[in-house]
């Protein structure tokens, strides 16, 4: 496992259009304003568009250049943006190698991500639960799932967390008699375990040597939730509801990182950014105000984790 700096944040959502990119950008905006160095990485390996949202039509350098080994490090790809203190690594243009990297490519990418010179690295992941998305998500020390109160979003967010949970356990089962337990085919079979408890029971029987490591990995997994596009106070409950199901059925800890109201001003803000306006003014109240709270918590948590790591190391 590649050790990622504590300031690495992966932002996923399971479903498209829930506001992953807007949340990432607005958090980046505030983190920049708080004088942190921020790097954005467009981790939507199949359909990159973060650069467009930042007003960059044709990025001069993209992840393609790294994958095709035209540049040795990801720092070589950093582009300045209209957001103060925020730089961007633009996603590639549908290079098949990128949409579906092999193991060696993935490892090289993760190593390079760990080496980027920045305070915070925000990785905007694509929709869906492809293994690559799950692996990037799990590799980051901080993991965020963005969801909205829409039923499909709730279900996809939970489905994404569950898929990440199974992927994590599957990694621990490598080299054990149950190494195929969570293969996609087996996973859907009738009688396949549906909850952490059932899964642990099967592992305790079939691969007792692995059970401790599996439980430890799940204990260490923590996921942040951001509920976006809230239209009524009741809808804010979506966060605690998903948290409760994750706890009860998967034994996965989740924290609510923030809640963002539905705010038509976001569209205007996004449009201004897309037109390349130099963003200095956040506007008043609304979604961006909530994004400030989220950014503040992200910075705070990163600082805490960093100091804990230094303490452990000394």
């Amino acid at each position: 496992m590649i050790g990622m700096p504590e300031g690495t944040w992966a932002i996923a959502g399971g479903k498209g259009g829930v506001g992953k990119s807007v949340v990432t950008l607005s958090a980046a905006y505030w983190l920049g304003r708080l004088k942190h160095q921020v790097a954005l990485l467009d981790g939507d390996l199949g359909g990159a568009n973060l650069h467009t949202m930042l007003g960059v039509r044709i990025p001069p350098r993209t992840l393609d250049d790294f994958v095709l080994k035209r540049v040795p490090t990801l720092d070589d790809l950093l582009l300045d943006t209209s957001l103060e203190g925020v730089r961007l690594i633009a996603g590639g243009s549908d290079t098949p190698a990128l949409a579906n990297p092999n193991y060696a490519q993935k490892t090289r990418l993760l190593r390079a991500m760990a080496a980027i010179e920045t305070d915070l690295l925000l990785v905007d992941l694509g929709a869906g639960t492809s293994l690559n998305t799950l692996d990037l998500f799990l590799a980051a020390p901080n993991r965020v799932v963005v969801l909205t109160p829409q039923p499909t979003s709730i279900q996809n967010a939970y489905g994404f967390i569950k898929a990440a949970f199974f992927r994590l356990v599957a990694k621990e089962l490598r080299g054990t008699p149950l190494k195929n337990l969570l293969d996609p085919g087996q996973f859907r079979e009738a009688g396949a375990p549906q909850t952490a408890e059932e899964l642990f029971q099967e592992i305790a029987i079939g691969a007792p040597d692995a059970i401790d490591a599996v439980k430890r990995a799940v204990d260490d997994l923590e996921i942040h939730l951001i509920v976006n596009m809230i239209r009524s106070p009741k809808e804010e409950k979506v966060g605690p509801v998903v948290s409760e199901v994750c706890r009860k059925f998967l034994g996965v800890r989740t924290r609510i990182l923030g809640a963002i109201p539905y705010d038509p001003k976001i569209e205007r803000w996004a449009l201004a950014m897309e037109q390349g306006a130099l963003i200095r003014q956040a506007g008043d109240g609304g979604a961006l105000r909530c994004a400030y709270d989220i950014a503040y918590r992200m910075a705070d948590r990163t600082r805490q984790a960093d100091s804990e790591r230094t303490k452990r190391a000394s």
Partner: protein
Amino acid sequence: MTPSAAIEAWRSLLSGTSDRPSWRGDTARRRALLPVADELDLLGVSALVDELAGRGRYIAALAVLRMANATIDSSAPLKKLLSELLAITPREADPSDDPVPSEFLGSHRPAIAWSVLERDRLEIVPNDGDFGRNSWVISTGLDRGPSRLDWAFLWGSDTEVAGKLRPAGRRKVTRRKLELTAAIALLGPAGPRQGATRFTAQVTDLTARGAGLVVVDRFDRLYGLQLVGKKLRLSLGIPGRTEPISTIGEICWTEGDETTRSTQMGVRFLDPPAELQEGVAELIDGRRDVQYLWSLVESHVGRRS
């Protein structure tokens, strides 16, 4: 011993016509006790497995795989036989049948079943207890002491499955925890005690072939009744279905607990309808987490207009 002679020896061992070896301890010891050949006659093993499974002797077929595994290095071909065995649809319930191997090994999935088989946890020891000589106790938990017995079956020339062992010893760990109740009606004369014919039970365990029940009311009425062998009608309300599913079963064992004033019983379904099979599948494989998610969303967030 030649490979085919070994298989012949296994066959007679399994039909109870030879001396009974104790099949415990380490592999070396086991090999010394078992009729073992240096080479494995895979076709012979396969034929014997088929023959035994065809007679409903699934546990015996598993034991053959276990013995064969003790004699070779690569288990790959045996795993293939195991997955074929696990895919076998059990015959019409016959009380003298062995349990289906997937039940015995905790899963119908070869990877898990094999790991139980492979980890030397399938023990076969001669039974010198009360159940007649010339039989073996086969278990997956004897190595952890009798109190931790997960499963045990008797098997011998006159195979009598499970019924006489402690009920607690017959439960398998991977069954689902259920929060289900069933309405029960005892069929036929209940004896002199009034009101002992209808009661409600908690379903603790459910498969398409039978159920484990706990009756918490009517303790005084049920206690001491000769229930084993009695038939009952069981109506099961399955969440998400409007009509309860009803079927007839036979009580295989009971156990009263005076401290909790409850009666536990095991029921075998006599002619389970197809919808019960479906209902069980829904319950067991149903996405309980997603159902729970929706129930929480509905009560806390409400439906979105």
